[in-house]
């Protein structure tokens, strides 16, 4: 199973700083592919520091833990270390007090994927033209929907949409969501910051822009361009891993319609 990887990022049109951080690894840490996107929050340079430290800690733990494969417990341990590191940095430096970050990770090997997330940076699986959210939204309204207190349609434009119930580095404890699944040929896993949605690009449109030709790098750039066309009020970052279709294994080629 061969994977293609691409990523792109842009500060957007209204922000000077880019508070997102991204890691894209191939054949490291006992994995075929590791992609991580973190979206930092906090005043001045704190958001950038938080997301950068979170990505750095997670990747370092996975590189050095001596383990292999997409194991959710492994990702949880790395996430806990990242939480500790960001929390401690915020305690030690008054400028960084209250900083934090979202985190979304996809770890892939041999057709298996482990997903971890904290916060509202989503992970999507695109399969056969359909998009599925494979992370859990830890925004305040999404949490209210899960508790049955408000309806999903009330959550969409909720005033508290950007308030997070879970984050990396804000509290002493962190409670990540994790999942594990199998990948099929042609599947694409996309991690992004909420800047894509904030710009007004729907999940379906993102999928079309990303996957409309075989060029993933160009696809990622098309998503950024579309976000900028729509005003991109927030930083936009996305990272994608796609399982290539092995044409040599296709037993019967479809007949051409003449």
């Amino acid at each position, binding site marked *: 199973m061969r994977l293609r990887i691409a*990523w*792109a*990022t842009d*500060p957007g049109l209204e922000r000077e*700083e*880019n508070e*997102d*951080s*991204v*890691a*894209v*690894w191939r054949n490291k840490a006992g994995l075929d592919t590791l992609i991580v996107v973190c979206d930092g929050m906090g005043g001045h*340079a704190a958001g*950038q*520091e938080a*997301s*950068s*430290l979170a*990505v*750095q800690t997670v*990747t370092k733990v996975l590189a050095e833990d001596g383990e292999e494969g997409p194991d959710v417990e492994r990702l949880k341990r790395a996430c806990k270390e990242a939480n500790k590191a960001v929390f401690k940095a915020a305690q030690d430096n008054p400028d960084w007090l209250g900083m934090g970050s979202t985190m979304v990770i996809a770890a892939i090997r041999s057709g298996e994927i482990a997903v971890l997330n904290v916060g509202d940076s989503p992970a999507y699986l695109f399969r056969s033209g359909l998009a599925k959210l494979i992370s859990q939204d830890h925004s305040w309204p999404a949490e209210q929907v899960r508790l049955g207190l408000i309806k999903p349609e009330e959550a969409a434009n909720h005033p508290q949409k950007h308030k997070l119930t879970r984050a990396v580095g804000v509290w002493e404890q962190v409670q990540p969501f994790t999942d594990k699944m199998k990948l099929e040929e042609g599947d694409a896993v996309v991690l992004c910051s909420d800047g894509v949605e904030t710009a007004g690009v729907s999940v379906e449109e993102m999928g079309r822009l990303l996957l409309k030709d075989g060029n993933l790098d160009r696809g990622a750039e098309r998503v950024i361009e579309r976000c900028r066309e729509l005003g991109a009020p927030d*930083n936009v*970052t996305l990272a994608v891993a796609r399982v290539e279709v092995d044409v040599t294994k296709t037993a019967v080629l479809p007949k051409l319609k003449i």
Partner: protein
Amino acid sequence: MPARQQQAAGVAAGPQSELTIESGPDAGHSHRVGDHGLRIGRSPDNDIILRDPATSGHHARLERRADQFWVVDLGSTNGTFVNGESIQEKQLNHGDRLTVGQNSVHFSLIGA
């Protein structure tokens, strides 16, 4: 102030080089590398600060060893590349292209 620049170059003990950022959010900036090394990264305490989500806080260092310039990766998350090849440390030649995060950085020897 060409005279003063010449004087400064005269005082400098060895060869000088230049890094030019060619793409990424900080494209267009040039930085001189001379007797003292240069640190590249996202944190404010670097000599070259790249505002880039794929660049680590302390990403890489440029340094001169005898008459040669070297680039050293400082354990960055996404790695440092010279002409597309991932490196830990590498001697640089005139015209080499470094990749640090989403930035393409051109290395040139001054006077070469």
